[in-house]
């Protein structure tokens, strides 16, 4: 809304020109290079690279583990956001600040730490071992690392929506005789779900591309615990640039599709929210 009238302010040409130039040089041209390279492969080469049994196993693990991690984060993230916005308890501010740790902690540090904790003789692993659960170097370990990485997303998308939610709707539901559970299901949840799904989708997208925190804990066994980003790195190390590019193109297109979906969802969330807010 600001600035459509701006004939007064200077600098549009300079700032916009610089932004577009820099964006093109650093982001757009390099990214299109990947698609140019992928397009230079013959159809057989491309299909052989993206549909090899090893690649298929990697997609299955990456998409599967990311989906489970996003689901875990949706459930626990909602609880954390609820507790942080609705209740008061000592240490709340500190905990609120700590939620962003996975954004701030370098992924390699997270990777070696989780591996150490979950290894057979680790702090957590030694308790899992007698139960017959092996976490390090298994898909379970991959899922745990991806859960860690995606933890802040759901909390941080749901939290502001919970904070802005008008108390009137809840009060109205309550005074009309709805119980607490019913109020949550019929009043709160419909307002929350776009943010919840957005957060989970962001966590999912982040998990799909994640490398540093997973590479240590996965054990990197082809066909078993090899995620897609690791497969790309392996291909690069073998100088199989064509194969790496083809798989990267598949992943990039998946990420863009998810991103578009998230944008659509956010639009939906805003509309709902705006509608609720404009009601007198």
């Amino acid at each position, binding site marked *: 809304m600001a600035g459509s009238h701006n004939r007064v302010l200077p600098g549009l040409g300079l*700032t916009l020109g610089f932004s577009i130039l820099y964006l093109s040089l650093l982001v757009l041209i390099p990214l299109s290079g990947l698609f140019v390279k992928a397009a230079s492969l013959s159809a057989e080469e491309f299909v052989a690279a993206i549909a090899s049994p090893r690649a298929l196993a990697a997609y299955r693990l990456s998409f599967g583990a990311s989906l489970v991690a996003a689901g875990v984060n949706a459930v626990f993230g909602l609880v954390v956001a609820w507790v942080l916005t609705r209740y008061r308890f000592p240490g709340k501010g500190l905990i609120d600040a700590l939620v962003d740790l996975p954004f701030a902690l370098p992924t390699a540090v997270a990777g070696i730490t989780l591996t150490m904790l979950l290894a057979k003789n680790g702090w957590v692993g030694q308790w899992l071992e007698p139960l017959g659960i092996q976490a390090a170097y298994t898909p379970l370990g991959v899922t745990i690392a991806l859960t860690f990485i995606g933890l802040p997303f759901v909390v941080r998308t749901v939290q502001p929506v919970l904070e802005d939610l008008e108390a009137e709707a809840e009060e109205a539901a309550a005074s009309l005789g709805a119980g607490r559970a019913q109020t949550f299901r019929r009043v709160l949840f419909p307002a929350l779900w776009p943010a919840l799904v957005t957060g989970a989708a962001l966590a999912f997208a982040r998990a*799909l591309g994640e490398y540093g925190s997973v590479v240590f804990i996965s054990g990197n066994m082809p066909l078993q615990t090899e995620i897609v980003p690791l497969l790309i*790195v392996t291909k690069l190390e073998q100088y199989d640039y064509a194969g790496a590019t083809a798989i990267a193109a598949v992943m990039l297109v998946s990420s863009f599709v998810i991103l578009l979906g998230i944008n659509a969802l956010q639009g939906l969330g805003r509309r709902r929210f705006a509608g609720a807010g404009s009601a007198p």
Partner: protein
Amino acid sequence: MTTATVTTLEHAPAPSVRAALVDPPLVRGGLIAIALGFLASFLLLPLAAVFYEALAGGLGLYWASITDPMARSAIWLTLVVAGISVPVNAVFGIAAAWAIARFEFPGKSVLVTLIDLPFAVSPVISGLIFILLFGAQGFFGPWLAEHGIRIIFAIPGIVIATTFITFPFVARELIPLMQEQGAEEEEAAISLGASGWQMFRRVTLPKIRFGLLYGVVLLNARAMGEFGAVSVVSGHIRGQTNTLPLHVEILYNEYQGTAAFAVASLLALLALATLAAKHLLEWQIRRTNRP
């Protein structure tokens, strides 16, 4: 807060309505326990483990690990990389936010979406695209080789990949902030005869300083901690192209666990400092922007 209490007191809802508005104590306690348990096991436990393992060999070994020549060169390279990526992306962020928040032009929403693009790209792919451009078999590979310029498996590649990864941070903080703040003060400055540069330095920069700092803090943390993209383009040449996260990886893979965690603890401290700065700045931004 006070007004809210007063209103609730004035029309205190009937007991049954209150019951439907407030979670029963059992639910409340249970949810707090679940949330704290989840955060303790996923956040506090790993954080404690980093420092415990780092100091497991005693302070002497800790100090030796972080002052070892390889560690020192990794610290230096990490500072150099962040020292280039952070200012370059900050300047871009300010420029993009100025154009987007202050003017209308066709394709604006496309530009906003494109700025976020690097966040949707896997770190590994972010490294790969620059290998395809500048690697030995890349588009510019032969030309670079002819002129004796090394980008991949050298410091320029690390800088470029890191700059790509951290591209959106400042812009995405400043765009909503500047949109919210509006342009009245800047318009006043210009109509009172200030030059564009004067307006920027005296009016815009003070207005956005906390938001800018907020973006820079997050950008810096990512620039110093990036692993995947840097790992792909660095070539892991010890003492030359190893950043701190790559040094952690090498130590860990050589079974020097304590040394790896000692170096990792530096990065964990950086993360904690980042969280503290982020929290303080959020509080400042809320305070300054409140009318």
